[in-house]
């Protein structure tokens, strides 16, 4: 099977001006090559500032890459814009880190799920589709939640509302940028389970971004370890977690918390 999405030497530099003349560049991504297949969850791990969010935003074209290429189903989409960008965006969606900020506080939950259906000119019965989506993310019964506003539901539920919202577009790829790091332990599992479930049921490819190696081990098939914008290690999750090669990976594993350990 072919990759859904693949990057080739993706590099991103941010420019910051210093002094009168100097322009200093921060390399947020440095020749990153990743790929994602349908029906798999790929993890991107790294500490804060390693470029994880930057990568995600480039993939959904919220940022432009400095160099490198992006292939969507073997088609070079690095330079798309306008209509074709809109079309591409239907295929790739992003889940944000903070479920408290990613939903519009002034709109009901139903509105959030309905909008993508309207913008993508969904042909079937919209109400049925909303119910279907809400059931899929286990916001049941749908009627109970539809007219609520984001601040009236828990963080985990918000994240699920958000997932329903992006699933409404039938994307082939989901990018989840630390989707559970703001959630309580008791809610994390639910959301992670949901991600696995939609992967299995819909065959979607998911890029799961996190700094928490614990959750990575739970859901991902493969991981890329990102350090200062570079992929320092990649491979099957189990292999890497049990026998890491890179020092940085080792440090990450060492720092991962575990109630059975003692500091």
């Amino acid at each position, binding site marked *: 099977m072919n990759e859904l999405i693949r990057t080739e030497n993706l590099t991103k530099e941010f420019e910051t001006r210093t002094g009168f003349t100097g322009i200093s560049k921060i390399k947020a991504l440095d020749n990153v090559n990743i790929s994602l297949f349908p029906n798999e969850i790929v993890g991107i791990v790294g500490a804060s500032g390693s470029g994880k969010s930057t990568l995600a935003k480039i993939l959904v074209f919220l940022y432009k890459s400095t160099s490198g290429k992006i292939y969507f189903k073997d088609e070079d989409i690095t330079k798309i814009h306008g209509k074709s960008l809109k079309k591409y965006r*239907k295929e790739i969606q992003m889940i944000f880190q903070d479920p408290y900020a990613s939903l*519009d506080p*002034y709109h009901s939950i139903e509105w959030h799920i309905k909008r993508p259906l309207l913008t993508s000119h969904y042909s079937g019965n919209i109400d049925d589709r909303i119910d279907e989506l809400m059931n899929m993310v286990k916001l049941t019964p749908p009627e109970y939640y539809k007219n609520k506003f984001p601040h009236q539901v828990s963080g985990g539920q918000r994240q699920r509302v958000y997932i329903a919202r992006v699933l409404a577009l039938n994307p082939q790829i989901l990018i989840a940028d630390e989707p559970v790091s703001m959630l309580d332990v008791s809610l994390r599992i639910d959301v992670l389970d949901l991600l696995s479930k939609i992967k299995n049921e819909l065959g979607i490819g998911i890029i799961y971004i996190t700094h928490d190696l614990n959750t990575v081990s739970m859901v991902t098939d493969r991981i890329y370890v990102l350090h200062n914008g570079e992929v320092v290690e990649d491979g099957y999750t189990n292999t890497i977690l049990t026998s890491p090669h890179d020092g940085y990976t080792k440090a990450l594993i060492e720092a991962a918390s575990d109630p059975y350990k003692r500091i």
Partner: protein
Amino acid sequence: MEEKSNLNGKITYNKSKKLNGYTSIIRSSLATLLKNNKSKVGFILLLSIVTFSIIGIFYTPYNPNAYLFKFSQPPNFVNLLGTTGYGQDVFSELLGGAAPTLMIAFSVGLLGTLIAVLVGIFAGFTSKTTNAVINAFINIFLVIPGVLLIMLFGTYFLGIHQNLGYLPTIIILVITGWAFGARTFRSITLSIVKRDFILSSILIGESKMSIIMRQIMRAIMPVIVSNFFFTSMYGAMGLTFIEYLGVGNVEQVNWGTMLYWAINYEAYLTGAWWWILPPSIMISMLMFSLILLNFGLDEMANPSLRVFKKKKRDKNE
């Protein structure tokens, strides 16, 4: 599971059943507004001024324009607030002049806010360069003293348009009064646009227009209302100012022209307080009511200013 209050009991589910459309938003914000004592007073004050002005449209004891009485009479039973130095009835002028004054204040508020919102949101939502250009443009208007512009434009309009009624006045005030709001809206939009829920809407393919109308406008609603109040205040003050400088339409009756004539007659030197004080007090009441309303809005938008009465309950309860 029962519907029950969540999140510190602040919002109850049944209240939010059908909170759709702007009217209900306005209604509910009004309710929040009126919870605040200061804005409640402001609202009542404004309401009474508006009522006063509406009465003035249909009824004044005497013709406010006609010179019917002895000059400079102090208040008495025939002329509740005395007469002007020209023999007009001050109370009739005050009553009849209310509606035009409010009309100007609120038109300036409305138009000024409209322009400010359009420019501000546009600036906040376009490319970096356009944004910078608009920012400079806004700054030009902020930096150029309004008074000078009022005088210049005022004289200009005096010169060219003679039968436009209050239109020139309103135009001048809008020209000089929109920039403050635009700056606010620009920076608010800039910060909102970076928020995840707007990014999310971009990603799901919403058009810019839809985002502006459905999300940004709604998010900045309290600011819009507050800006409307402020611009209206500017309109009321600006009107008096324009009239004082004599670059308005001094033949029409409103609170500004009342002051113009009173001051030209040196009413304060002749001791005709009944001529100069009523319009001043009415104008400041109008301003005052708007300021008070704004207080409530501030607390709405900025919860840290909010206070509740202590309702500590008995611990045995």
